[in-house]
């Protein structure tokens, strides 16, 4: 199965590398959102510093929506989704492969966003390990939920608008948990970031299990 996970993940990442959608559209979009938040709150610097974690993760949520849209579209546009079934790849391998590819893109964007909040918002990182662990663990949960919902809306006519409506509420626990953990990592609010990281890990595990169980059913034609 790991072979197929790798096959699907590398295929998706190669498509992204060739199309440059992540680099030429998603990264500039994320940077733009960060800058606009900065413009909106710059007059009140203390508020901006306090809100940095939340703004960071809201931006990540927007970016995740775009990445999932893209990941879903490449399988639907020319019937590749059907061919995946015919090829005999286990649905769980497709799910995990697409999750890995989305997560990899999100992590690249987050590296740039962390640099962005340090430069633009004047944030200082007190606990790098907590910050990095939060990025990785939260990203797994986001990517798994995104992959699963992408498959769910694949057959829906207005999937571009339906996906964010479904995905963003489901990601609310990640937004809360990751923001709190980041607050601790940046030292902006006194909370126990590691406890919130545990919550994120639980959310990620639930989404991975749900995806593994449900993806096969969602991949099937009705």
């Amino acid at each position, binding site marked *: 199965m790991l072979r*197929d996970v790798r*096959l699907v993940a590398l*295929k998706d990442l*190669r*498509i992204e590398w*060739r*199309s440059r959608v992540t680099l030429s559209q998603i990264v500039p979009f994320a940077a733009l959102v960060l800058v606009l938040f900065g413009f909106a709150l710059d007059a009140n610097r203390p508020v901006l510093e306090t809100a940095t974690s939340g703004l960071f993760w809201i931006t990540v949520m927007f970016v995740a929506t775009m990445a999932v849209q893209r990941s879903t579209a*490449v399988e639907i*546009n*020319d*019937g*590749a989704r*059907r*061919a*995946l*079934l*015919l*090829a*005999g*790849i286990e649905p769980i391998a497709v799910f995990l492969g697409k999750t890995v590819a989305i997560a990899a893109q999100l992590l690249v964007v987050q590296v740039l966003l962390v640099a962005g909040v340090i430069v633009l918002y004047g944030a200082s990182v007190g606990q790098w390990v907590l910050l990095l662990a939060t990025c990785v663990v939260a990203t797994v949960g986001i990517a798994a939920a995104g992959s699963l919902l992408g498959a769910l809306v694949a057959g829906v006519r207005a999937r571009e608008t339906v996906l964010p409506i479904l995905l963003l509420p489901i990601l609310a626990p990640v937004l809360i948990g990751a923001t709190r953990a980041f607050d601790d990592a940046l030292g902006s609010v006194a909370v126990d970031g590691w406890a919130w990281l545990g919550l994120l890990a639980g959310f990620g595990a639930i989404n991975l299990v749900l995806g593994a169980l449900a993806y096969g059913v969602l991949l*099937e*034609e*009705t």
Partner: protein
Amino acid sequence: MVRLRGVVALLGRFPALAGVDLEIDAREIVLVQGPNGAGKSTLLRVCAGLLRVESGTAEVLGHDLSVDRAAVRRSVGLLGHDTALYDDLTVLENLQFWAAASRVAPESVLPALDRLGVASRLHAVAVSRLSAGQRRRVALAGVVVRRPTLWLLDEPHAGLDQRGRDLVDQLVVDAARAGATVVMASHELDRTVDLATRHVTVAGGTITADRQVRAAEPGDHDAS
């Protein structure tokens, strides 16, 4: 090879197949004809194990479709209206991906492209830059790579030039001679009528005519 008895299949709530009885043996080349919306493509999708059988019994390649659709899927080659190619990957990358996914040796990709007359200068070209006919040829090469026992071809000549159409005809005959079965849905009767060993007409989700027009293709060993 294919045994369908009273098969009903739904597209949404619409019964696209409404009680189909059909038996197809090895080396037959079956032309499925009928008007738009008759159920031709649905019939192919059911045979491929992609669409659930709501009622009736269906056995394909010795597998009961209500029990083991996955086994059927692995053994069929389906060319649908879509080409199942990733626009941003090259021709070669696409076929290498599908070969790896289907657990077929990557060495089979180049001969398949050659067989379909896909020029080597196109191998490193992104699929998005191909014409519709070239895409169709690459998709057919993808079917060849799988070396299926059951070929399911939906409008295989669509979008192809004269040379491409001739190649498809030869591909179909060769597949049947090698022991495979070919079921093709087509509106291009001038080409396919002579190619097929059997004509099946579908209308309103049922089979309205089924006529053997010539003997099944002799096997390669028969010819020698």
